[in-house]
């Protein structure tokens, strides 16, 4: 199942999924989330592996856009012989 990260401004929360970095929300309309997905995609142009998990980077872009906070998730662990 695709991972999701939540971004919340308090009462309103958004979810961002690793499947195409699509934004969804039960609190706002589909047009708004569609536009926010596009905003995230534009923001992803600045992504580098140096920023860590791409899903968390996308969530940061969304949080910056809506003035919200990203819910934290556990660190990943790296494999031997793999470099990012």
């Amino acid at each position, binding site marked *: 199942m695709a991972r999701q990260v939540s971004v919340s401004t308090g*009462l309103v929360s958004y979810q961002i999924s690793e499947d195409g970095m699509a934004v969804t929300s039960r609190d706002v309309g589909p047009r708004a989330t569609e536009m926010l997905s596009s905003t995230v995609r*534009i923001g992803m142009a600045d992504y*580098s592996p140096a*920023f860590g998990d791409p899903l*968390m980077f996308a969530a940061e872009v969304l*949080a910056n856009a809506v*003035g919200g906070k990203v819910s*934290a998730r556990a660190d*990943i662990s790296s494999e031997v012989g793999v470099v990012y």
Partner: protein
Amino acid sequence: MIAVFRPARHRDADAVLRCVRILRAVQAVIERRGFCPTGPGGGIDNSCGKSEGGGGAGSPVGDGGSSGGGRVEPAKSGNGPLVKAARDEHKKALDKARKNLDKAQEKADAKFAETTKKFYEAKDAHYDASDRAAKLQEEHAGIIQRLSADPTNATLQQALERSVGMLEESSKAFESTHKALEKSHKQREKVRQEMRSAVQKALRKECDSVNKEDGVEERRREQVQHIYGLESHVGAAQFGDVAERSRVIASRTVVRQEMKEAQEFAMNAVNSEIHVQAMTTPVVFEESVRASATVREIDHDAEQLVGYATSLGNRSSYTTLSANDNASTHVHEMAHHMEYSTPEVRELTNDFLASRTGGESPVQFSKKFPDVGYADDEVGSPDDFSKAFKAAGYSDEDAERLAHYAGKRYDGTMTEVLTMGMELMYKDARTFAASDPEWFDLVFGVASGRILSKTRKARKEQRPYGTPS
């Protein structure tokens, strides 16, 4: 009243500062003067940077405290003994190549700075509208919540009507700023592409010149082009469903476009006669994964075999990429293979890293930058790598993270100085050259093969690297 968390972002002042930095970087190159984007107001004295923003006494690994990343003494020059010798030996050629690059990018630079300025203005306007819409949405949700507890409250009913009107209005503003953002993004990317084409011509010229000097007949370039055209280039390192899924992802228009851009850049900026193996490393796509390079020593040894470069089936090194990854990330991972497959590159990058970060205690990224998904074993120190990232347009906060990553330490075999440098060269080579010439010379010299004297000599004499001539 609900407190709304507002993280630092590209606010107006930040965007203006960034544009000023870019414009000044361009101006500094034109005027052939030193440039220091970390100086007050982005000044022109390049003596600063090392001592600024370093902050505090040394902190051990895992401290994650001061923004200086636990620096214990000012970082040294990027010219470690090996890099210094390489730069000195090829000084004339490197200076000439940088001059050609300046000339190539000069025209496109002003246009790019202008579109970048407009992009950040549009981005800030959109983020403001988005922020306002989110706040109104929150107020609206609050009113509905209170009304459900007190449905006959006339004041709340009036407030709900008002909030509906305001929401509609903010939604229109949100939509219009979004359109403006998309438009300015497209314009900036178009100009960036023009700029990239000009730069790539200059980079290609340098690769050609190196091969000509060495009397090398360019055969591998065609092989690389051939492999890029093969469907099996994607997923070749995997089997069955994994390989098939990988090819399905690679067939998407957006993914194909990013891969094509990265390959075009590689074909011009990287010397295929030297880095053929890295350029043709098989790629595996996954839906969402942190991009990585799996590197195996065996591939380097096998590269000596005739016909190896044209074969994909026997490779054990590969690159893993996400469906969302941009061309810059493709370039980053390819650079890992460049570093690993050519021993002299590893010698130079490790020498450079040691000379730049010597004396700095490594910081654990997961503690310094929590909640962004770094593994606990990722450590490094930033030196003043951030000046190149700031000049490239990153916010101070992002530049800080990227600088730490550029100074990442593995077990002494790999670094991130080439990978992060290649990303900078891909983004804006001329600004990179102006903001951190030492680092640029290393990256440019490795990619073009210019400073790889020992490798070039071994190839000329047709003997394996490291054996006596």
